[in-house]
C-alpha cells in the first residue's frame, strides 16, 4: 500500500468527478433541496401546533377552565366555533384535523359527580393524533384530580432535556446527514459494474495500482464528499432555519467516527451490490431496493419513534438507523452514551461487511 498511489487515484477521480454535473447535483444539492423543502413545510419553525376546533355546548366555569387547560398545554391552538354549525363539516372545510365537542350535559354531569364526557374527533391517519389524545387525557386527569379534591401521589416536574426546545427542522438535519452517507454506496454501486464492463480495473492493474489502494482512495473520496455535503447541509440549516446544534470537540469527534464507520459499511455494501449487478437495470433495481427501505424506515424522513412498532422492528435491522440515531443523539440530545452504542453497532456491521466484500471482490474479469 503506497499512499502516493492512493493520492494519484484520488486526483484522477476528483478531476473526472468535477466533470460530471449530475453527480454533483445528487450528492450535494439534492440533500439541500430536501432540507429546504422540509424547512418550508414546517416553516412555523417552533414546535408543532395543532389547531383544535371546540364547540362548547355547555358554557360554564367548568367547561371554560377545561378549554383554558387545553390552551395552556401549548400544543393546541384553540379555535372556538359557534354552537350552531356542524363541527365535522367545519373541520373538514377548514382542514382542521382535531375537533372537540363539549356536550350540553357536561356541566350538569360534573356538578352531579357523574362522569362528564367530551367528544373528540380526529383523523385516524394523522401522525399527531396519538400525541393529541395523550395531551387531552392529561388535561382531563388534572381536572379530575382537582375536582375530586385528592392530593396527587405522584407528580412530574419538567426539567428541559434540551437547552432550547428543538425545532422540527432540527430533527431532519441528522436524518439528511444520514441520507448523504448513502452516497458512498451509490458511488460504488454504479462504479463497480461500469468499471468491470469497460475493464477499467484491468487498466488500473496495468499501472501497478492495487485493489486496496483503489479502495482506500474511494473511501477517502466518499468521506470528503460526504463531509462537504454535510457541511453545506448544516450551513443551510443554520443560515435558513437557525438550527442549533450541540457543538463540542467530543460531539465533533463522535460524529466523524459515525460518519467514517458508516461510509466504510456503505462502501462495502456498494461493492457487494455492484458485483451482483450485471447491467444497468439490475443496478437501478438493486439501488432502489436498498435505498427505499433505508430512506423511509431509518429515520431519514420520519423519526423512527413516529413509526408503528412493527416498522420500528424492521428499522432495527437497517444499519442506517444506527447512523441516524447516533447523529441524532449527538447533535440534538447531547447523549454520548447512546451515540457510542450506535457507533459500536455500526463498527461491527462495517467490519463484517467490509471483510466479506474485500475477500470476494476481484478486479480480474475471469
Amino acid at each position, binding site marked *: 500500500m503506497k499512499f502516493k498511489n492512493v493520492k*494519484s487515484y484520488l486526483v*484522477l477521480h476528483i478531476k473526472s468527478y468535477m466533470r460530471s454535473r449530475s453527480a454533483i447535483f445528487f450528492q450535494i444539492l439534492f440533500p439541500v433541496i430536501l432540507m429546504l423543502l422540509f424547512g418550508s413545510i414546517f416553516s412555523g419553525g417552533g414546535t408543532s401546533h395543532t389547531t383544535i376546533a371546540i364547540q362548547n355546548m355547555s358554557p360554564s366555569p367548568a367547561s371554560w377552565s377545561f378549554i383554558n387547560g387545553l390552551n395552556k398545554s401549548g400544543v393546541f391552538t384553540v379555535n372556538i366555533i359557534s354552537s350552531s354549525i356542524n363541527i365535522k363539516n367545519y373541520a373538514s372545510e377548514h382542514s382542521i384535523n382535531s375537533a372537540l365537542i363539549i356536550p350540553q350535559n357536561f356541566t350538569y354531569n360534573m356538578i352531579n359527580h357523574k362522569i362528564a364526557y367530551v367528544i373528540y374527533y380526529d383523523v385516524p391517519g394523522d401522525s399527531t393524533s396519538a400525541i393529541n389524545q395523550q395531551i387531552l387525557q392529561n388535561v382531563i386527569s388534572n381536572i379530575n384530580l382537582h375536582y375530586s379534591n385528592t392530593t396527587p401521589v405522584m407528580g412530574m416536574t419538567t426539567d428541559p432535556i434540551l437547552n432550547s426546545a428543538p425545532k422540527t427542522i432540527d430533527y431532519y438535519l441528522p436524518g439528511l446527514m444520514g441520507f448523504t452517507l448513502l452516497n458512498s454506496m451509490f458511488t460504488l454501486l454504479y462504479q463497480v459494474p461500469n468499471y468491470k464492463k469497460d475493464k*477499467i480495473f484491468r*487498466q488500473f492493474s496495468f*499501472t501497478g495500482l492495487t485493489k486496496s489502494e483503489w479502495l482506500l482512495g474511494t473511501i477517502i473520496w466518499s468521506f470528503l464528499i460526504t463531509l462537504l455535503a454535510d457541511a453545506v447541509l448544516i450551513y443551510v440549516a443554520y443560515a435558513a432555519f437557525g438550527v442549533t446544534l450541540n457543538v463540542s470537540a467530543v460531539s465533533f469527534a463522535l460524529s466523524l467516527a459515525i460518519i467514517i464507520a458508516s461510509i466504510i459499511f456503505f462502501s462495502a455494501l456498494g461493492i457487494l451490490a455492484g458485483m451482483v449487478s450485471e447491467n444497468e437495470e439490475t443496478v437501478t433495481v438493486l439501488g432502489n431496493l436498498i435505498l427505499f427501505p433505508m430512506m423511509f424506515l431509518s429515520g431519514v424522513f420520519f423519526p423512527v419513534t413516529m413509526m408503528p412498532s412493527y416498522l420500528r422492528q424492521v428499522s432495527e435491522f437497517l444499519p442506517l438507523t444506527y447512523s441516524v440515531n447516533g447523529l441524532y443523539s449527538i447533535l440534538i440530545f447531547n447523549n454520548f452514551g447512546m451515540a457510542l452504542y450506535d457507533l459500536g453497532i455500526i463498527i461491527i456491521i462495517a467490519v463484517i461487511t467490509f471483510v466479506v466484500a474485500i475477500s470476494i471482490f476481484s478486479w480480474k474479469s475471469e
Partner: protein
Amino acid sequence: MDIIVVKNLTKRYGKLIAVDNINFTVHKGEIFSLLGPNGAGKTTTVEMMEGIRKATTGSISILGLDPIKDFAKLRGRCGILPQDFKFIDNSTPYDALSFYSQVLGSKKGVDYTDNIDDILRKVDLMDKKSTSFKNLSGGQKQKLGLALALINDPELLFLDEPTTGLDPQARRSIWDVIREIKKNGKTIILTTHYLDEAELLADRVGIVNKGKFITLDSPNNIVSANHIPDRLIIKGSERIYSSLTDAGYNVRSDDGMYEILMKNPTEVASVFDVLRNNNVTWNDFFMKRDSLEDVFVRLVGKVNEKGDVS
C-alpha cells in the same frame, strides 16, 4: 536472447479450445506479430502473456518471470494496449497519462509526467489533451491507449490490434511510432488483422487459426515458402485462351481475364510473341505477385476447408 518463452500453451473455455498447445519464443528487439482471422485465439494468447488470463496448461516466461505470479514486478517493464481499450468516461487524456506516470513511476521513484507532452505529440493527440474520454473518437481513444502503454518507456510492449479503426494516415503515423520504438531496442508483440501491417513491421509473423500456428516465420520466408509463381494476366478476346493453350501454356480463364503462370519473367515476351503471331488482340495486361495477404487467405482458407491443419 529470448524475452518470451511459451511452451505447450493451451487455453480452454469449456469445450472450446481457444489456444491449442502452441510453442514459440520471442527474441529481444524484434517485432513479433500474431496474424489471424476473428476468433483465432490471438487476444487469448496475448492476454495470457500479459498475466491477465490464466493458461489452462503450459508455461509462459516473460523477461524470465511468471506473468501471473510476478504480475506486480512486470508492471514497470511492460506496456499494454488491450484490444478493447477504454478508460474513465469523464477523464481526459492528460489526466489518464498523469495518473499512469505517477503510479508507474512510484515503483522506481521516478515520475514520467515530463514525458506526457512528448507522448501526446507522438500519437498526435495534443489537441485533445483536455477532452473527456467519452468525447474522443474511436481512433483517438485507441491513440490514448497506445500513449498509456508507452508512458513509462517499457522494454516489452503488447499491442493488440493497435491500428484497428484508425484512418489510413493515422495508421501510418502509428507505424512510425512502432518503428521508432523498435529502433530503441524494445520488443513488441503485435496482433493484427492487417496483413500489410504485419508484412511491413514484423520481423516474424505467426499465422494463427483456431488456436494453432499454421506457420511462423519472417514475412518474406512465409511468402516464398507458400509462394505461387508470378502470374501474367491479360484482358482481351476469347482467342487469347485458345491460341495460348495451343502453344502449350497452362491458362486459367476468368471472365475475360486470362491468367498464365510464369516460370520466369522472360517468359512474358514469348507469350506476347505467340499472341502477335496469331494476330490476337488484347486490351490490357498486368503481372500479379503473391503478397502475404494472398498467402494468408490461401493458408487460412485451406485450413478452414479441411477443418484442421494437415
